[in-house]
């Protein structure tokens, strides 16, 4: 068959690129990765048979450049492009361009993307196809008067949404008519800024609904099936946090109705490939069409685990024009699957995206656990891309088993370096409401009305940190020592040595003293408290310690001799820096505020003025001496308080150029 795919280019990065390549590898398809310069060492680049750099870090200079990707496809001889999710996956023009270049776009046809990409158009199409939709207004008349009048008809509370929107942007909940004009103005302006299209729709707000979506699949020959549902109700600001299948309140009859509606939705746009029809399900069992995602979803593994199907393989088969070969009756759901999304973000700082190095990534493993990850130890989380690092999915014969396995997987994993939402995910999975399967889209807001805040490390956790630092320093010394015996460890002839550790937690100092008592027993002193610890096992990255009568698994990473990132049991990851080694010892010597001439020479320029704020290392003046130019740097961050030399001045060595008053750190 002429449509056979030999080489597939994945126009994406991170875990989804890796995921797609895994199936390609299984199918014997050669893979091509594209990457930006900051992703040169990323896992998807490592995994591909060929990798092509398509530009710089910002997405607009690489992953969102259709021409670059098509060039890469041409030069690598790719006969198909898989767009993954995000980036160009729902870009109809790109799908078109692929067609024109004679390259198979692994995704639906242009029309399906276009229709479903516009909330108003899609809603009109769905109403026409008989798919239940939320009562509302999706007309072309966008005047404020019409929108307000239509709102009265829809009834409050209601949502004002950007027609071209997604991801919660350009969306406003309105409780009464008085709020409406402002909500319309804000939503329109957001929509224009975010999507370049200010068109709005009005919808009745379905309060505290479940988010239940149906996975559909269609081939090029008109066969459409559904693969059951996924409940994605646990969301934070419309971003999914937990996804599971089946939905805890699903019944056979409801699945049949929702599945049929989803199939109708797909048929209405002549859908091909993998798609997801999202519905809101209210407490009475009534459901409403929300939108259709014309791509592979992030949470597709949940469906794969309960159906036993490989959705990427099905996508590739459909793209090659093969018949699906499955009837609805061939598809059954067995067991339960649950997924969480591990993000580089700080739950304690209002989920601010985090970046930074991945010092250590120890993914969980075990029965029923699947990890789709786009990171590796030694990598870097850059600010340019979505902060999702990995998906952790657990399968069980029932919901509780899946939940427990997922919880265990999160507790077992370790990621040190960038901050992650792991502790938040653990917390979510342990909430009674979630355990009972009662979570709706209001769950997170109701559970943490004041915002999320993880527990601060207590004395046991700090004692564990001090003990780990003690043991690590001992191991390092022992490694270097010429001869050392186990029986001499922790021994001093006067039996009175204590190692000091000082940590600052929430601006409060904690002074801890570790002293070995006997064998593997230690006492950690913290003020008047004596914390007894027994080391049961200790290695480079983990330890098992009996702490205050409880056996705890510790996981840690030490970026240097002074700092430690640690988690105790299923508790949060926290980091400490031992200031007992001296703040200067930890931070390196803070520079002096005086900038002096390094040698005899002439001042070429002074780059700052009095009152300027400067950062440490910033060039503040340039001197010429011995025919060489010397950039003089600020030794400390602060404010320039005095300029003592000007351009053209001849200075002797150590003569003052300018002074900086150090900023309070």
């Amino acid at each position: 068959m002429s449509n056979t795919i030999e080489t597939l280019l994945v126009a994406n990065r991170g875990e989804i690129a890796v995921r797609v390549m895994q199936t390609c590898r299984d199918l014997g398809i050669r893979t091509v990765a594209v990457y930006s310069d900051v992703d040169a060492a990323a896992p998807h680049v490592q995994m591909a048979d060929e990798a092509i750099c398509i530009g710089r870090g910002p997405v607009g200079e690489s992953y969102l450049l259709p021409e670059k990707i098509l060039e890469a496809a041409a030069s690598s001889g790719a006969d198909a492009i898989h767009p993954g999710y995000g980036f160009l996956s729902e870009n109809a023009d790109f799908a078109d361009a692929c067609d024109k270049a004679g390259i198979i776009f692994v995704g639906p046809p242009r029309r399906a993307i276009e229709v479903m990409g516009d909330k108003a158009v899609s809603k009109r199409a769905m109403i026409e196809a008989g798919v239940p939709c939320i009562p509302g207004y999706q007309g072309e008349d966008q005047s404020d008067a019409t929108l307000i009048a239509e709102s009265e008809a829809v009834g409050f509370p209601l949502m004002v949404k950007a027609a071209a929107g997604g991801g919660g942007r350009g969306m406003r909940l309105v409780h009464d008519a008085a709020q409406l004009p402002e909500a319309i103005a804000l939503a329109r302006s957001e929509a224009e800024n975010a999507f370049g299209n200010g068109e709005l729709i009005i919808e009745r707000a379905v309060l505290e609904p479940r988010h239940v979506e149906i996975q559909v699949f269609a081939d090029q020959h008109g066969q459409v099936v559904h693969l059951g549902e996924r409940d994605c109700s646990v969301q934070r600001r419309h971003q999914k946090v937990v996804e599971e299948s089946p939905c805890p309140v699903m019944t056979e009859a409801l699945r049949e109705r929702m599945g049929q509606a989803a199939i109708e939705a797909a048929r209405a746009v002549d859908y091909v490939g993998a798609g997801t029809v999202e519905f809101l399900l209210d407490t009475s069992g009534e459901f409403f069409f929300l939108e259709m995602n014309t791509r592979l979803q992030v949470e597709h593994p949940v469906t794969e685990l309960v159906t036993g199907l490989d959705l990427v393989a099905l996508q590739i088969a459909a793209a090659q024009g093969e018949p699906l070969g499955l009837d609805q009756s061939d598809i059954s759901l067995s067991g339960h699957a649950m997924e969480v999304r591990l993000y580089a973000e700080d739950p304690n700082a209002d989920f601010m995206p985090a970046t930074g190095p991945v010092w250590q990534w120890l993914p969980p493993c075990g029965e029923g656990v699947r990890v789709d990850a786009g990171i590796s130890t030694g990598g870097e989380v850059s600010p340019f891309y979505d902060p999702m690092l990995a998906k952790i999915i657990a399968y069980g014969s029932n919901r509780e088993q899946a939940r427990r396995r997922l919880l265990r997987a999160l507790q077992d994993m370790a990621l040190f370096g960038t901050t992650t939402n792991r502790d938040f995910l653990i917390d979510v999975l342990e909430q009674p409401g979630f355990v009972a399967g009662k979570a709706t889209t209001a769950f997170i807001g109701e559970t943490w009305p004041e915002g999320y805040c993880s527990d601060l490390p207590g004395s046991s956790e700090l004692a564990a940190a001090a003990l780990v630092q003690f043991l690590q320093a001992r191991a390092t010394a022992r490694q270097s020592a010429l001869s050392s015996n186990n029986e001499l460890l922790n021994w001093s002839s006067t039996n009175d040595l204590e190692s000091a550790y000082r940590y600052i937690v929430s601006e409060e100092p904690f002074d801890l003293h570790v002293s070995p008592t006997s064998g593997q027993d230690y006492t950690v002193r913290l003020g008047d408290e004596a914390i007894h610890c027994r080391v049961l096992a200790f290695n480079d990255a983990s330890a098992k310690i009996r702490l205050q009568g409880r056996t705890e698994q510790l996981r840690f990473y030490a970026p240097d001799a002074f700092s430690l990132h640690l988690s105790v049991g299923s508790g949060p990851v926290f980091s400490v820096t031992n200031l007992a080694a001296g703040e200067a010892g930890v931070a390196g010597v803070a520079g002096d505020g005086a900038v002096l001439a390094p040698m005899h020479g002439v001042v070429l320029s002074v780059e700052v003025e009095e009152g300027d704020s400067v950062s440490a290392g910033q060039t503040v003046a340039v001197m010429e001496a011995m025919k060489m130019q010397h950039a003089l740097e600020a030794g400390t961050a602060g404010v320039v308080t005095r300029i003592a030399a000007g351009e053209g001045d001849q200075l002797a060595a150590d003569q003052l150029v300018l002074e900086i008053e150090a900023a309070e750190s």
Partner: protein
Amino acid sequence: MPVFTSRVPVKSDTYEKNRQAMLALVNELRALEQRAVDASNKRLPVFEKRGQIPPHERVARLLDPGMPFLRLHTLSNYLYEDENPETSIPGASMILGIGYVSGVRCMVWVDDSGIRAGAYSKNTVATAQSIQAMAMRQNLPLVHLVESAGANLMDFTVENWIGAGAMFRNLAWSSAKGLPVITVLHGPSTAGGAYMPGLSDYVIGVKNNGMAALAGAALVKAATGEIADERELGGSEMHASVSGLVEYLAEDDAHGIVLARDVMARLDWNAKSGSEYFEKSKYSDPVEMPRYDADELCGVVPVDYRVAYDVHELLARVVDGSDMEDFKPGFGASTVCTHASIMGIKVGILGNNGPIDPAGANKAAQFIQLCDQAQLPLVFLNNITGFMVGTEYEQAGMIKHGSKMVQAVANARVPKITLYVGASYGAGNYGMCGFAYEPDFLFAWPNASSHVMGGEQAARTMSQVAEVQAQRKGEEPDRDALAEQEARIIAHFEKQESAFYSAGRNLSHSVIDPRDTRKVIGFVLQTCLEGRQRELQPNSFGVGRM
């Protein structure tokens, strides 16, 4: 191989009695050591006010956590400067020992500036020389944390002045020998003390408190009339940027210690010092532990040296697997010579099950020479009241055979470790490698008793002499006067024979808890073997300070 089977019933009344008596002595030792810590801690508020870390905590921060640390001369100066046992503060205002800094076994010398601001005690200079000599002998780098008010002019002596000269000479010799000295100036180091940084290889000066000057402001005023500012005169900041005496400037005490550890780490000292030898050696785990608990040492060994016991009982709680092979067990039986290993290090051990007779001396001399031939370290467990006396023994050549043993001990080239575990008297001490025979290390249990002879014996000897003199003159000896003299002699001897007294005069390197015997011997054997494996790169004049 013969594994020794203990015959001492553990938990018997005698055992318990021994144990209680020994533990009381250990407690006495710990209380004396604590006296120095308490004295030092009285000055904690001053350190806190100055933003300084107190000396004992400096030690803990300098050392690698959890690595072994052997304190030396903890009782130095005890009963030496202050003869009152109730008030005498041991330690000579220093905290000394062999420990690990950045994985390197080294000599650690920390001035205890909590006691009289670190001013020299009567025994400070001699004690410093002792550990300097030890460092040079064992090829150990030296780390010195300096903060000393220097000589106390009120009671300084010419001996101390000359001794201080030797201390500085030792620094020059160390540098020339190829042994680096790292010094942190935590506080003042004035007058003679200024040569401490001056003669060190690496100097880290702590800002604000670190200070070195040939003469402090007071002496400068007296000498030249100049009114000098202390920091301008000798502050770390000045030395780091103007005089060049200080290599590294530290923000505070903690930073200074971090820098010292860093300097040591960067010397990469272990990489070029016979480490291949140690990789191949068997001085690491696993070794077989003794079959009997070290804790039992306190119960199986009587505190009173007059009560006989089998030294094998002691060894069974010290050597690997309680496994030993006696050399000539049937010849000169009371002098025990045996082969065993401690922490995997094979050694020849000499012990006493009674006085040394001619056969015993003969055997010991032969054994010592054989160990020297085979390069086996020697361990001497002293519980010896002396060489046998009497006509029979003199005729058998006790002097000749004893001298042979002394000659062998004095000239053996292998590492020698001596432990006083009971009596160590007279020439028995010489034969069993007493302090004068310069063992690499000498430690005493707290019950140890050493002198030229026992007090009673000395007293009776003197009475005997007096009685003979009286008889010669045909007079009746004054019994009362003799009884009084005996009591005086006994008291005089008893005072001096205690392990604590000897340690105060640096006639041992430390008094140890008997239960630590295996650890101490194992640790110092490693120290000796590492030191002897190390090839230094000597130079003629030491590294000149630029």
